């Protein structure tokens, strides 16, 4: 993954800081939603909500991660498990 080559994927004005681990988890989950071929399973209103939390900068909040996890588990269960394992979370 690109994360490995460029270090932390960090957007302008956003430090990873103490929330870095959860931000990386959130971004990994977000990328699952952005690349799944199963996007038709994501209701447009939910998709717009994902975009809203991303644009508001709250993608790494516990509530947002819960939403991302729920959606990822629905559209890409295997990839979701792999991401959780990568982040040291038991599945």
């Amino acid at each position, binding site marked *: 993954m690109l994360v490995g080559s460029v270090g932390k994927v960090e957007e302008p004005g956003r430090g990873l800081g103490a929330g870095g681990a959860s931000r990386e988890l959130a971004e990994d989950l977000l990328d699952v939603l952005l690349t799944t071929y199963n*996007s038709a399973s994501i209701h447009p209103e939910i998709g717009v909500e994902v975009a809203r939390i991303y644009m508001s900068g709250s993608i790494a909040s516990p509530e947002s991660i819960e939403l991302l996890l729920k959606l990822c588990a629905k559209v890409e269960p295997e990839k979701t498990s792999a991401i959780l394992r990568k982040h040291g979370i038991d599945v």
Partner: protein
Amino acid sequence: MSEGMRFSIELPPKDPLWRLQIYAHLADRLSFHTIWLSDHYFNRNTVVAASVIAGVTKRLRIGLGIMNPYLYHPVWMAQAAATLSELAPERVSLGIGAGDRLALDSLGIRQVDPVERVREAVRTIRETLRGGADERSRLDFKPWGRIPIYVAAQGEKLLRLAAEAGDGVLINSSWLHEPVRPVRIVREALAGLARDEKDFSVEMEALVSIHEDRQKARKTVKPYVGVVSQGIPQRLSGELGIRPETLSRIREMVLRRNWLEIHRVVPDEMVDLFAIAGNPKHVEERVEDLLGSGLDGVVFGGPLGPTPRRAIIELDRILRGLSR
């Protein structure tokens, strides 16, 4: 590298609108100049997507297109661009081209007199945006800011037309293997017309796919390379050593829109001819080469990468490095 080089990205609205919002919002905060929304009848509607993007960006220019006069009346395109400028004042560009022949064929539309159709469309759009040639053809409102018209061009006649009628040219990605040639044609045409080059932007679309895993990057770009290969003239395919039977197999896949399988029939050599695909280092080297071609800008199109959000960030990092 030229001073003030423009780096833009193209987002095909094949993705749901919420994904486009995320990509556009990200690009707005990075170094990109314009987001072009390509137009294909089988994707989401370009103008609707552009309106959504206007709502989540503050700085980026938004390019409609490339649109074509076979599908849309020029007055309709002018009206769409002018309306969009109310959501994105001073940030709208319009791209006009002859259309993708294969897509037009699928709709039963014949691509007759492409150069003349594009010339007439650009003229009518310009007149309409300026207030109309007469009372009947004018809009009842004015666009917010000047809307530059780019002409998308592949063949020599369209390249010359771009220099004559456009505010800029978007050179087709099929020239990526030899970018100096179309740039020279456009610049010579500009000189012949005594046009000031400062008022004209020579830009090229470059299919790009970035990923640490080179093979993954190349596989991801192959559907786009397949589409580009269908637009090249027979003479060029001969020059490049592309076999007719290969083009024919790709054509079948494109017509069936079998994007998941098309990578099996697009040969690896074709990727390097029509795209920049590989790891960040490779992409950086290819982009650096491209910048020596006399271009004023590059529009990075295609998939951008297997994970487009990360590819946008990586591309920005590369471009910032090259700008130093």
